């Protein structure tokens, strides 16, 4: 089997398993972790983070796994459909609209910020752009 097919099968398997999270049996496992982390979790649970230590650990791992799997799915989608990957500027404008950020009303400024941030920091996020754009807006109004 080619490495590409093997990877595709692994991704399929990952999504199959994620789909079973809410219905599957649970297993007891041990995780080596910093002692301070365990204590911090206890304190955070007492402060209301989650009902139990177990809930907190499972929720964090679940979020990480689902985000990772979604990233793989999005990258596979872009490989199959070249041209649909949103640019950094488009992502930044989407972030502004999601947040009801006043920057959403100034798409030209967001686009300019995206160009600058892309040059300064390869792999920048939409929120990096919004921070830069907010600074530009602040400087403009000063």
């Amino acid at each position, binding site marked *: 089997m080619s490495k590409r097919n093997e990877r595709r099968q692994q991704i399929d398997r990952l999504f199959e398993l994620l789909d079973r999270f809410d219905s599957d049996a649970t297993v007891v496992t041990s995780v080596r972790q910093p002692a301070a982390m365990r204590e911090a979790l206890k304190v955070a649970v007492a402060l209301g983070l989650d009902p139990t230590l177990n809930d907190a650990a499972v929720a964090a791992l679940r979020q990480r796994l689902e985000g990772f799997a979604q990233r793989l799915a*999005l990258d596979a989608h872009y490989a199959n459909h070249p041209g649909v990957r949103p640019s950094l500027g488009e992502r930044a404008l989407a972030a502004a609209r999601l947040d009801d950020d006043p920057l959403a009303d100034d798409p030209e400024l967001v686009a300019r910020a995206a160009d600058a941030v892309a040059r300064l920091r390869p792999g920048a996020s939409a929120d990096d752009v919004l921070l830069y754009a907010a600074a530009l807006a602040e400087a403009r109004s000063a």
Partner: protein
Amino acid sequence: MRQKRPPGTVVLDSEAVDALADPRHPKHRHALAYIEVTNERRARNERIRVVAPTAVRVEARWDRRAPTAADLNRIAGARDHLLDTGAANRAAELAGLVPGVSVVDAAVAQAAEVVEPGPATILTSDEEDFGRLAAHLHRAIVIARI
């Protein structure tokens, strides 16, 4: 002055689902930009979810079991928001309060009112109807246009 309110939950309306489902849809790339933002934030361990009210899934013909839905299931990363008895009662109430809104719009507004973590942003192309519904919700929502 308007304050930014990053959402804890993004609620998909039917138009957003339609756009995400079809790579040839004129707004596909635009809808993906929103999904990318949620993925970036998840990767930074920020608590953010995407939900699809079950009424939206019906309207958009999104059957999660269908092989054609495999891509959408994976890229949207959306969990279902169920229309149970309590949710149906509230959606019916909202539909009665705002003449002319669809059943699905009322179900989406109901979801935005209760989803956790809050606050909620609705991803839609129908700003007008959701603007009218928002006035009757128990908490403030953001409406993002695709």
